[in-house]
């Protein structure tokens, strides 16, 4: 049972991460910065509870806000460019953040010994949850409550005017601009909201893992973040959740009996899913594209 509770926590955290990428992808931008915001949220929230003894929810909110602010500031110059350039710029951003935390050393003496980020050794001892007697089940409730709140808000947002604007920008920037939609506002707001959600996910992750280090937040994490919504299909939020369950639950845990080969299979299965469902798993029409479409380069 503990195993499944632990798995549910990971799935919840990664769902938040995937939803953060969903916001940005919804405006048609492919951003690999989500791992960077996740790292910011993790370190900020972790420092809040360990060094300054903030309550957990406030610390999580603080992590999300800092990540949101950074996303807002970085969003303006980055979103002038698009396509491949944005992929590279956001990759660079993620790497800068990761290397910043790799070099960050801020140790504070408390009664329980020194705490805080310790450079390349990572940031250990984020023990808020164990010291306050949270059981695994209660942590799960917290995580999934957050997931539910974020999912519902995004669902409502998607049906509101803002969602329509984002979708319009994502479908066709030129058309959106010509009917008077402010591209910068739409993109930067989506980027900032995505940053906040990724920061929230990071804060939860730091408290779940109790030890974080720069290696957790590499390009791979950002790739996972955008892989969930793309695999699941951008037209629905449930697709993201489905993709997280598929990757974390089935590919990474369910295939454990395959030993080392499962991480190899992971990459191959992403390729296979893209071949049979290039627009994502949960998209209409429900048929396998490889059987119905000709060669890609010919048209």
């Amino acid at each position, binding site marked *: 049972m503990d195993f499944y509770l632990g798995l549910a926590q990971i799935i919840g955290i990664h769902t938040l991460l995937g939803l953060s990428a969903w916001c940005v*992808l919804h405006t048609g931008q*492919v951003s690999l910065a989500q791992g960077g915001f996740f790292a910011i949220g993790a370190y900020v929230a972790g420092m809040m509870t360990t060094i300054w003894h903030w309550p957990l929810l406030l610390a999580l909110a603080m992590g999300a806000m800092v990540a949101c602010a950074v996303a807002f500031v970085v969003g303006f*110059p*980055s979103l*002038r*460019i698009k*396509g*491949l*350039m944005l*992929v*590279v*710029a956001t*990759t*660079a*951003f993620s*790497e*800068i953040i990761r*290397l*910043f935390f*790799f*070099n960050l050393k801020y140790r504070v003496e408390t009664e329980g010994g020194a705490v805080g980020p310790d450079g*390349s050794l990572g940031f250990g001892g984020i023990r808020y949850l164990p010291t306050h007697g949270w059981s695994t089940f209660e942590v799960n409730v917290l995580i999934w409550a957050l997931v539910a709140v974020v999912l519902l808000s995004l669902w409502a947002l998607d049906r509101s005017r803002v969602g329509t604007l984002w979708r319009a920008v994502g479908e066709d920037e030129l058309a959106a601009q010509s009917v008077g939609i402010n591209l910068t506002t739409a993109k930067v707001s989506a980027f900032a909201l995505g940053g906040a959600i990724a920061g929230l996910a990071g804060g939860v992750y730091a408290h779940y893992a109790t030890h974080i280090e720069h290696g957790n937040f*590499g*390009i*791979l994490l950002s*790739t996972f973040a*955008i*892989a969930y919504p*793309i*695999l699941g299909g951008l037209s629905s939020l449930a697709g993201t959740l489905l993709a997280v369950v598929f990757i974390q639950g089935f590919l990474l845990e369910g295939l454990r009996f395959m030993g*080392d*080969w499962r*991480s*190899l299979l*992971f*990459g*191959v*299965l*992403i*390729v296979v899913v*893209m*071949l049979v469902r*290039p*627009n994502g798993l949960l998209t209409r029409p429900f048929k396998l*594209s*490889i059987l119905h*479409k000709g*060669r*890609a*380069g*010919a*048209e």
Partner: protein
Amino acid sequence: MLTLIDLTQSVIDGLLFGSTYALIGIGFTLIFGVMHKINLSYAATSVAAAYLSLVVVNIVPTPLVYIAAALAGGVLGWMIYLVCFRFLPINNPRSTLLSTVGMLLAIEEFISHVTHGMPLNYPAMFQDSNIELGNFFIRGDLLFVFALGCIAMVALIQLLKRTRLGLATRAVAQQPIAAQLCGMGIATTNVSTFVIAGLLGGTAGAMTGAAVGVLSPLLALPLTVKGLVVTVIGGLGSIPGAIVAGLIVGACENLFQFMRGVSERDIYVMLMLFVFLVFRPGGLFAAPGGRD
């Protein structure tokens, strides 16, 4: 005075190693120029090609190992095209992005699985013939790697400028529909671009192996990131841009490493990229007219 010499020395070493980045950058740029798609598995295939060439390392002399790496890169490039591009819709850049990421992960894992995660030695040439120029010191193996990179680049440029295949490649990159009307097969051109880029990538993988001394699956991600940085700084779709940017990135990287240490080195490389994106978003050399 001493530090100035050391500074220049590290810039020289970096410039020589930068030829690897230049080749990887050219590969990204070539594929982007022709298909307007990004092949994220490119650097991983390059490393994989270098690994494949190790199969013949005990049988043939070292120069042939490099040629084997290039050939393996060409074959892998063709396979990547078949698996990750051919059957995917051309109007959805996200799906090819993700399929190549999947491929990158699969290749990386496959290499570490087959080699049990142990780095393998890669043969270098002219290791003992170092050149001393006054206060400076040029490593023979790095110089050889640099020369190899230059040969590959000259060969590529001649191929693009002088042959019918190169003409078709450039035409499809500029105006795919007009090229098709003139009787050039887009699918054929795409395949040949992948094979050419693969040949270059295999060479780059072999060069990295020769310069570093060992091959490791851990090389794939940093090479991908540096290759992308080079592509963007040089200007998307511009081959001279990729060459110049590769050398610049190599030199600056080594310089930053000398001044600030290895753990902070990449921060400054990425910041350099940001400066370029803000002040010169088109890169050093603006690309020729694109597909749209």
